[in-house]
């Protein structure tokens, strides 16, 4: 068994920052990641980092913009923490040598971004994420932090008290992809999940193939609730054939959107009379799809993003990467012709519920970055706010897990008695685990997590009543045993259904039914499809018998996570009968503040998902954010 003070799961922006922070506090920290850190999808972020570091700007303006962008579903303490910590974290990156773009006076460049009242998006060309990721990996190398790369964490070692808030996380189980070894990793202080996005729930996404929401799904099954999962950001400018992202920086620099008639529709059809192309992402995505649905799209599929008028010099200086992407992935020369774009899944605003120190309701379990929900983004994330979230909350989680006192958190986690429970949701099928099959072998396929989560008992009763509470080592050891049983089962089973078929079916249904425009019928259809996939998954098998680099096995385990998260997204979307931020409902065309100024919470509850609501915190340090009509 491996043993460290702090284990960071995932080697992207949030994970690397957490590891560096924990290390600086003196902790023995290790990163366990299914990809080598430099392969992480943080590297694909293009636009920049919002940070109020210039005269005329201030953290409270950044906070205000973020709260407005969230459509008043972000929590003020989280948003204010982000806005306050981002300048220091951003300058820290510069001090670590990050190659930011520069102004004539030698200072780092900033540019306008959607929904911002000040041009505070600090950037490094149109490849800010690449530079952020590599700069932080360099610091990890400098500090000699141990990295277990290509080790896939497939299970958390959490105790199984009835109330998730009484549970404790002692470590993880990881699978060495190269050798097929399954080993326990014990964390003396804490486990920080930094596993990133879940875009693979959809089939048209800017996300990497590796973005399967592993951390969020594992935490959910272990008892930590998921928050605001229905809020999925669809980025307005992705290349139609691949989903590759074209940065908002193009519009930030002055790029213009046209429909097939050559009309500048953001203004001409009144979608955003002030901000035009630089309205918030949800607004622009809906505008594009409305144009397409009303017959003004190009080939009924996309619209044009034109940056030719910016001139070759400016484009090459600030957006060169966009030229490469458009050429390589769409065959278009951005200097000579407009680029075809359409909305694509980009970001999950929701995630594992945490407080501003990154803590979940399970003791010793943290989450940071896209897999977490603090909540900073509420119902819609502003461009340029994902990277500061990684470094701000990654650092805070790392420090806290290493034992640093960050004070009393203002955000509470876990289900309180006074919270409102959703009892009236009309679902066409039962969500959650497939009914207990007893000795049926299907009990093993999904990891045996129907009734006891991914946890193992620390309850003396299950051991016959006489022993004391299981030690941390026992909890990890038993989680390892359970995982070995599951992997053996999946590999030895030689017929059934394969994950690729299930994945395709799930992704198609989610893209069809839980997209930018949503209605009750489609959401119910999605729940039925997800159920069908979940039941079929009971018969899943892995064709590749090899222990060496068995990606068939990894994809099969990931598939379970996609199912659980797709269901969580859709349940939240069905429950929330209002239009807020990225969540649009055909039957409910207005934001209902009286009813819906609350977070959608979903707890796994041992396989019978429990939907409840938690109030939004709009009280900031110095002021209360009053919900206003959101127009751009």
């Amino acid at each position, binding site marked *: 068994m491996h043993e460290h003070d702090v284990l960071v799961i995932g080697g992207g922006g949030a994970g690397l920052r957490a590891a560096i922070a924990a290390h600086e506090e003196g902790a023995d920290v290790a990163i366990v990641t299914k*990809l*080598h850190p430099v*392969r*992480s*999808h943080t*590297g*694909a972020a293009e636009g920049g980092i919002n940070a109020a570091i210039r005269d005329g700007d201030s953290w409270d303006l950044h906070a205000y913009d973020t709260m407005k962008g969230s459509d008043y579903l972000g929590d003020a303490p989280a948003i204010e923490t982000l806005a306050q910590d981002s300048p*220091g974290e951003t*300058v820290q990156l*510069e*001090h*670590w*040598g990050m*190659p*930011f*773009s*520069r*102004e*004539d*006076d*030698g*200072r*780092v460049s900033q540019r306008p971004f959607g929904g911002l009242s000040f041009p505070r998006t600090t950037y490094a*060309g149109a*490849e800010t994420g*690449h*530079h952020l990721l*590599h*700069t932080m990996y*360099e*610091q990890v*190398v*400098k500090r000699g932090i141990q990295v277990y790369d290509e080790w896939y964490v497939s299970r958390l070692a959490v105790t199984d008290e009835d109330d998730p808030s009484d549970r404790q996380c002692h470590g993880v189980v990881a699978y060495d992809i*190269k050798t097929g070894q399954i080993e326990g990793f014990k964390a003396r202080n804490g486990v920080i999940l930094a596993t990133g996005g879940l875009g693979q729930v959809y089939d048209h996404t800017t996300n*990497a*193939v*590796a973005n399967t929401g592993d951390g969020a799904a594992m935490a959910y099954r272990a008892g930590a609730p998921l928050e605001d999962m229905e809020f999925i950001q669809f980025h307005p400018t992705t290349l139609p*054939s*691949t*989903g*590759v*992202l074209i940065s908002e920086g193009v519009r930030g620099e002055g790029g213009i959107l046209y429909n097939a008639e050559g009309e500048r529709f953001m203004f001409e059809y009144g979608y955003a009379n002030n901000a035009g192309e630089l309205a918030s992402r949800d607004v622009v995505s809906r505008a594009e799809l409305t144009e397409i649905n009303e017959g003004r799209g190009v080939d009924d599929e996309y619209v044009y993003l034109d940056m030719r008028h910016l001139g070759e010099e400016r484009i090459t200086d600030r957006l060169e990467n966009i030229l*490469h*992407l458009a050429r390589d*992935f*769409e*065959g278009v020369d951005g200097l000579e012709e407009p680029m075809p774009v359409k909305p694509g899944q980009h970001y999950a605003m929701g995630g594992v519920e945490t407080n501003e120190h990154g803590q979940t309701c399970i003791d010793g379990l943290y989450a940071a970055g896209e897999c977490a929900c603090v909540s900073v983004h509420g119902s819609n994330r502003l461009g340029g706010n994902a990277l500061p979230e990684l470094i701000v909350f990654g650092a805070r989680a790392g420090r806290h897990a290493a034992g640093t006192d960050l004070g009393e958190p203002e955000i509470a986690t876990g289900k309180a008695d006074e919270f409102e429970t959703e009892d009236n949701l009309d679902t066409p099928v039962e969500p959650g685990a497939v009914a207990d099959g007893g000795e049926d072998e299907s009990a093993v396929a999904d990891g045996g997590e129907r009734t006891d989560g991914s946890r193992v008992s620390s309850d003396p009763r299950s051991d016959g009543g006489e022993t004391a509470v299981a030690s941390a080592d026992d909890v990890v050891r038993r989680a390892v045993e359970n995982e070995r049983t599951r992997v053996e089962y999946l590999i030895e089973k030689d017929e059934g*259904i*394969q994950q*690729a*078929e299930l994945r*395709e079916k799930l992704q198609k249904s989610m893209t069809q039914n839980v997209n930018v425009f949503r209605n009750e019928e489609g959401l119910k259809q999605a729940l039925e499809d997800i159920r069908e996939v979940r039941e079929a998954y009971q018969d899943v098998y892995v*064709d*590749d018998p*090899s222990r*060496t*680099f*068995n*990606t*068939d096995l990894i994809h099969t385990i990931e598939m379970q996570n996609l199912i659980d998260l797709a269901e969580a997204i859709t349940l939240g979307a069905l429950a929330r009968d209002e239009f807020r931020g990225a969540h649009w409902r055909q039957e409910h065309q207005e934001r209902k503040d009286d009813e819906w100024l609350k977070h959608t919470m979903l707890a796994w509850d041992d396989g019978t998902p429990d939907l409840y609501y938690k109030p939004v915190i709009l009280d900031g340090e110095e002021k209360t954010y009053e919900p206003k009509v959101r127009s751009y």
Partner: protein
Amino acid sequence: MSTQIQEEADEPTETEAETAPAERQSPGDRRRAEKRTASDQAVGSEPVGRADDDTFRLKVFRYDPEVEGKMEPRFDDFYVPREKGMTVLDALIYARDHYDTTLTFRHSCRQAVCGSDAFFVNGRQRLGCQTQISDLEAPIRVEPLPHQDVVKDLVVDMEHFYDQMHAVEPFFQEDDLPSGDLEEQRQSRENREKIKMSTRCIWCGACMSSCNIAAGDNEYLGPAAINKAYRFAMDDREGDDLKQHRLNIMDQEHGVWRCQTQFSCTNVCPKDIPLTEHIQELKREAVKQNLKFW
């Protein structure tokens, strides 16, 4: 191990190709049918998919150290339906998800930034996701990167590459940080421009794999690591003492002097980094540095 195995000379005949499972089945059905076929025949001898006007032949290197029938390296043929805009990575994913789920390769971002999918495609190091099928002659032959140990199929062992990258102190070492609160270091636009190309490296390993010198000298730092050193040595924010320190690391037997300016690294770099130029510039700087201390 080497990937230079004898390729079967015979092209598959039409009849053979037509015995392959028909389209319109679900991937699962196809797989099961193929699995049965595979157990009846020598593994790997039969092309998978239908050879016709709408498909192209993808020849993929196969090897698994512990699976019967794959321990001897071989090539498998897959007939993949042509689609507009299809890349080599798309074709591999198609073959894996529809024909053979044991086909193994690294990939993640699909947009040439994660650097996972450098392969040897039709005799040249390329990123699978960045290479259009329409730009290649069929059959398209995909092999693991040469000069690296093969783990399985197209997956190579990257440890040596990472070791070399780590050997050049690949991290910024600040010289004199500004004291003011939230004060960044200044850097001129020209200096940022100077290091810009060198900072684009995605650690894919294509350059190292293409380099004859690196193939013959395991201690040679190689183009990617030297480029990493260049990125810091040329960054004015680090200051002169550190620059000298970095040049000393480069100015050694297995450093810059091993490079024989064959430009193979520069030719294959998917991010168009002028690697050979960077190495040459470090050689010149090292000479200047040495002269200064005479």
